[in-house]
């Protein structure tokens, strides 16, 4: 017994030295050994998007582009276009024209690099029976599949992110991984999202979607023109949502769903520009917003161009 304590004194190992040594050893084991590890640590210590300066953002972009190139074996550009001053995006959807063909739904998937299997769609087209209680969402049908649309007794209402001015999802996020940009687009930083899905519970429109598995998409299907806050390839375990095609609209183009609609039911523009199409719709047509009573103040306007 005495001998043992004596030996212990000889190697002079007390609790403090042991812990210091263990910490040093662990840190040594985790030191970056090659480039991939360096990229891991850079990602680990990446700052919040809104706290980074331009140089830091550029570095992140370079790292991401390299990662994506390794993963998908093709060049993918990650954009950082800033919001345009004096622009607040608004969306209009003409319910008197929509025929429920789901062209928008699939154009969105092609543009925004969603996972194909498991399937993620940012747009949901709901079918309602005509003449029933007005917009009873419980009675709506999401999986309708007739041979031809429109069907005589039904009307259709596509639902996607309503880009609320008062977004409940943003308030529910514990890590501030989602926020509203100055041009009104609610965005997610996929590198900051921890996947708790509180925002999905908070969203009254079912507009947020979770990557339950590694997003599955063929490299040749990937749209290589992306934005950091938009359609860049996502990770397993993060939430994603419609961004009004931020990579297109911040460059002045229409969102993909607007250009895909065969009947021209989808309208897009600047709410602050009195001559824009969306303002013309709001000023001249019968307009409503979905679940207006929740005080979310959506910037997605459903309207009826005829049949008043």
């Amino acid at each position: 017994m005495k001998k043992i304590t004596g030996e212990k004194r000889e190697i002079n190992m007390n609790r403090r030295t042991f812990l210091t040594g263990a910490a040093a050893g662990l840190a040594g084991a985790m030191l970056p050994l090659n480039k991939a590890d360096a990229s891991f640590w850079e990602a680990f210590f990446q700052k919040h998007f809104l706290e980074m300066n331009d140089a830091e953002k550029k570095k992140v972009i370079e790292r991401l582009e390299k990662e994506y190139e390794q993963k998908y074996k093709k060049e993918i550009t990650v954009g950082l276009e800033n919001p345009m001053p004096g622009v607040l995006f608004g969306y209009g959807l003409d319910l008197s024209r929509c025929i429920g063909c789901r062209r928008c739904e699939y154009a969105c998937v092609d543009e925004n690099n969603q996972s194909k299997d498991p399937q993620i769609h940012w747009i949901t087209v709901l079918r309602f029976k005509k003449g029933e209680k007005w917009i009873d969402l419980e009675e709506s049908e999401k999986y309708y599949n007739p041979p031809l649309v429109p069907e005589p007794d039904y009307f259709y209402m596509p639902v996607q992110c309503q880009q609320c001015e008062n977004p409940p999802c943003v308030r529910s996020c514990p890590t501030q991984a989602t926020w509203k940009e100055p041009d009104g687009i609610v965005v997610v930083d996929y590198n900051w999202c921890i996947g708790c899905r509180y925002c999905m519970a908070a969203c009254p429109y079912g507009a947020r979607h979770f990557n339950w598995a590694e997003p599955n998409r063929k490299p040749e299907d990937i749209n290589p023109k992306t934005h950091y806050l938009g359609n860049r390839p996502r990770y397993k375990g993060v939430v994603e949502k419609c961004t009004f095609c931020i990579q297109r609209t911040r460059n002045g183009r229409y969102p993909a769903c607007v250009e895909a609609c065969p009947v021209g039911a989808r309208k897009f523009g600047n709410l602050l520009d009195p001559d824009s199409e969306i303002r013309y719709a709001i000023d001249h047509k019968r307009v409503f917003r979905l679940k207006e009573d929740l005080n979310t103040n959506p910037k997605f306007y459903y309207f009826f161009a005829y049949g008043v």
Partner: protein
Amino acid sequence: MEKCNKRVFISLAGLLLLIFFHPSFVESAERDIPKHFLVPPPPFSPGIFPCSQCHMYMPANKTPRKLEMHQEIVLKHMPGGWCFDCHNPDNRDRLRLANGKLISFDESYLLCGQCHGTILRDWKAGLHGKRTGMWNGEKLYRLCVHCHWPHEPRFKPIKPLPPPVRPSEIK
């Protein structure tokens, strides 16, 4: 002094009248199409235009009747109407408005707008019909006839794309 004022007034009034009744002003009011406005050429069946390649050798028969040519066209638009309500018997390569004015096929929206005035108004404002291009700049409009076959303008039903996967089908 008074005389001078009068003269100025008269010449001003004359100038205003001249501007208002000048043919180019009337025309521009009729065509007040938006800025950044592009329209692709009308969707003719191949080889059919110019119409004069056949019609210039035929005398125009202006009595409404069943045609021997153009059998594929069944007019399901405007009951009681017939060809020369819109087409022009004397110069087949132009369309004719109700006021007798001739317009080219590229401006056929003026013809449609004679009856569908509110739709034409919405179309000019960018609301009716599909737009592609830039929301803040140059955008591509389409003529009415790009989506609506003028002889039977109602949309044909189309096949919807497949419904989303049900949660119960996810393995």
